[in-house]
């Protein structure tokens, strides 16, 4: 009976049912407005307005089914304000609107993981097609959809790859708070992202989209209704990112515990602030741009149509105003994770704390001034190219701060080669190659050859996959025992690391050579002389995929079957989350902690105990 009530309540199941209902309501509603057609059920008889309205209706239904409208309506009907929804209860918390930041963190981990898996499968399909120079497995349109879905899925969903799971879970704990500033908005960011992921997946029912993740018009205006799924996906991701960023900034600004001054803040929290400020400022540009693109498609405006007084340069400009901060939204959390974990596993204080913070903030600031390096050969603002060349190369200075701080932190330390540490060390290798290949792309004469080739593709896979995904796994191995209360298997973790590191490099390093040899991106066919390297890359990519399966096996095996309880502080960390039991109790702290130092005082005496148990006397010694 109780189980039955759980199913009928507000949860994922009702959300999906209402989401589908809302979709059809939007579809038929829009048909009724735009002129009833003869066959309302025919997919061939669609128009853009009905597609957009269908998905907007679907999203509203989905959110209503999760219960996001309950609280506003309750307030309208005069019920008193309340802060929390569904914080306790069993597994069903994870499938419904829950305002406990720790539940949202775990929801994010699995939700993002699911779409990372789908994006990864797309990559496998791309590499299958590229095994032969002629086009062989997929029709050309399907291939482009796969390429576009891979890029869009990874860029969109993984923007929240570290902030979603780990910042939501650990930022309140690290700053000594019991919750985020806006817990319902926190839950909303997650469910919006899931709705977005669902929408992008359904693009295959509407013929896919041919534009890759950049969605340049006029190709975008030519495309069929699958393009609308791309537009709605990215707009929803943009809304989710904006809200996530706002929530993080508000929380960190206002809810720090006593004693947690700006110079005692864990560097991970500084990374979250940097990333969140980029999200808040960049994502609205994306939303507005896609809004204009949607108008162009649905109601015949001509913002981006050259023949109608608009310009497709406008789209490229606006897209990269978002797009370049976006790549730092992906990379910066990685910097922060590396700097956060190195002190723990070298048992030394973080070296040059202020320089590290300056590095993160410097990248944040400079990332606004570089976007036209994506347009060096486009013919837009030819005279501004020296400026963008300079600003782009300047970014390597604050990035270098992260390098020197990390390197000096392990210098003369007591290095332990745990799985998270291995992933952090791999970051240095990957980001070094990724960053230095960026120098070629930032230099206009070199960029003339490398732009739009496999070289730039290798470059951003080294920085994003090598920078974000490696540190994402470092964070997983470091924090998941704390989040779930179960240990992850160390041996499987090491197998995962070494296979991933070797096959990652074996996959992406040859792409630099292919780009130098002249292979353009996003092609379904290529020069037969490139076949050997492409086959090498494909085989390596499949092995890289298998390495991910090792991780998946480790996760399921350790968390669902083996279930070895994790210690409270398995790493000997001085950070406050490891002074709490694993998993962390619902309200985090019985009493708000008072910080006396930063968490990096290794070698400076015994670790201060900031967490005060419930029964302790009120006074402090």
């Amino acid at each position, binding site marked *: 009976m109780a189980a039955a009530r759980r199913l009928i309540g507000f949860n994922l199941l009702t959300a999906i049912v209402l989401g589908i209902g809302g979709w059809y309501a939007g579809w038929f509603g829009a048909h009724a407005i735009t002129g009833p057609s003869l066959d309302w059920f025919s997919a061939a008889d669609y128009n853009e307005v009905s597609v957009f309205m269908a998905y907007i209706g679907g999203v509203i239904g989905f959110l209503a089914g999760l219960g996001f409208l309950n609280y506003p309506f309750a307030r309208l009907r005069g019920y008193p304000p309340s802060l929390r929804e569904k914080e306790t209860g069993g597994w069903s918390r994870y499938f419904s609107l829950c305002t406990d930041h720790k539940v949202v963190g775990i929801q994010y981990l699995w939700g993002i993981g699911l779409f990372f898996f789908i994006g990864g499968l797309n990559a496998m399909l791309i590499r299958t097609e590229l095994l032969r120079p002629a086009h062989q497995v997929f029709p050309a349109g399907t291939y482009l959809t796969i390429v576009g879905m891979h890029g869009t899925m990874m860029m969109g969903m993984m923007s929240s790859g570290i902030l979603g799971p780990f910042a939501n879970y650990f930022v309140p704990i690290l700053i000594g708070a019991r919750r985020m500033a806006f817990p319902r908005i926190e839950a909303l960011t997650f469910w919006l992202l899931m709705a977005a992921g669902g929408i992008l997946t359904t693009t295959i029912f509407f013929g896919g989209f041919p534009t890759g993740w950049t969605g340049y018009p006029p190709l975008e205006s030519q495309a069929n209704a699958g393009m609308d799924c791309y537009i709605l996906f990215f707009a929803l991701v943009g809304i989710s990112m904006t809200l996530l960023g706002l929530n993080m900034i508000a929380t960190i600004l206002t809810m720090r515990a006593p004693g947690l001054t700006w110079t005692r803040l864990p560097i991970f929290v500084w990374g979250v602030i940097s990333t969140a400020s980029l999200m808040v400022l960049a994502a609205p540009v994306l939303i507005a741009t896609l809004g204009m693109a949607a108008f162009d498609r649905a109601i015949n405006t001509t913002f981006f149509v050259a023949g109608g007084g608009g310009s497709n*340069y406008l789209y490229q400009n606006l897209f990269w105003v978002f797009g370049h901060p976006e790549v730092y939204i992906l990379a910066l959390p990685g910097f922060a994770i590396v700097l956060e974990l190195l002190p723990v596993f070298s048992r*030394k204080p973080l070296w040059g704390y202020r320089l590290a913070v300056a590095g993160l903030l410097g990248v944040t600031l400079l990332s606004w001034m570089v976007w036209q390096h994506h347009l060096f050969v486009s013919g837009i603002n030819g005279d501004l190219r020296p400026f963008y060349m300079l600003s782009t190369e*300047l970014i*390597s200075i604050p990035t270098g701060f992260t390098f*020197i701080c990390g390197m000096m932190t392990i210098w003369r330390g007591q290095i332990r080669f745990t799985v998270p540490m291995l992933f952090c060390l791999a970051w240095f290798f990957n980001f070094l190659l990724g960053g230095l290949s960026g*120098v070629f792309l930032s230099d206009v004469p070199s960029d003339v*050859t490398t732009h739009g080739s496999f070289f730039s593709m290798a470059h951003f896979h080294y920085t994003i996959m090598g920078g974000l995904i490696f540190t994402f796994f470092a964070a997983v191995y470091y924090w998941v025992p704390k989040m779930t209360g179960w240990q992850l298997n160390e041996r499987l973790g090491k197998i995962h690391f070494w296979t991933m590191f070797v096959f990652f490099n074996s996959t992406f390093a040859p792409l630099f050579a292919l780009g130098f040899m002249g292979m353009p991106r996003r092609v379904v066919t290529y020069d037969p002389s490139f076949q050997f390297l492409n086959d090498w890359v494909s085989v390596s990519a499949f092995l890289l995929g298998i390495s991910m399966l090792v991780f998946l096996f480790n996760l399921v095996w350790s968390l669902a079957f083996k279930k070895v309880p994790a210690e409270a502080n398995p790493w000997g960390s001085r950070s406050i989350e490891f002074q709490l039991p694993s998993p962390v109790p619902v309200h985090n702290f019985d009493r708000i902690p008072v910080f006396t130092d930063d968490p990096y005082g290794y070698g400076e005496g015994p670790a201060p105990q900031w967490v005060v148990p419930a029964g302790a006397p009120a006074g402090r010694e």
Partner: protein
Amino acid sequence: MAAEPMAARPSDGVSHGRRVITAWLVVSAIATPLVVVLVGPLLPPGNASTQASQQVIDNTVITGIVTPVVCLIFVFFVYALLNFRAPKGGALVDGPPLRNHAGIQIAWMVITSVTVLFLAGFGTYELLQNGAGGGQGPSPVAVPGGKKIAVQVIAQQWEFTYRYPGFGGFESHELVLPEDTYVVLHVTSLDVVHSFWAYELGVKADANPRVDNVAFVRTKAPGMFQVRCAELCGLWHGYMYNNGHVVSADQFHAWVKSQQALYKPIAKYLPGFRREYLPAPVRRGG
């Protein structure tokens, strides 16, 4: 959380820092010239045009600067990871609490800044000589002097055609250029965004509808080069490639004559030559 402070490590009388820096200097002094001499000539896109050779120089300079950086990081990590390992098993021991060193910070900032400013200055110098083969938009800033022939590259889904306004304005499916000549390429598109990429010539310029994107290239000896599309332009983007030729002046004029004869019957139906073409607006909608 055993945290017993550890005695300062280099009591064994060696300076780790001096060792790493010495090793780095030695390794880079060997590696950098080797890389420049051995890898430099292999760097793209070759020497088929002045611009291509110039890009090779840029690539070589960047590679030469990047090599010591790679050496530094590699030497550092090899040394650190071999020497600063915690003993297996046993209680956790803390390292020395080094939090800062002003000298290292300043040295690092100065070295990275100087390197970066040099790279930006060098790149700008190279770019402004003749545009380095990149598309510069309708009003180019880096214009090489001297006599040039104009060729218009018209991109459409999914092929490039080439118009020769100086030779009666015929429009051909082949790109043929005379040797040892400065060529102005006017790149435009009839539909979506393409990118004209003549790999061996070191030319890349986006083709945008209603835009005249200008790139300069000076051909050298006769030979073949490949033309590809470098911007995703829809279904058959991957098939948008063919070969172009650099030929001697006599062969070029013979080819022009043959093309003029070939296209004479349709020449009167061609629209007049323009730097940019107005595409039919792509409209859809409700």
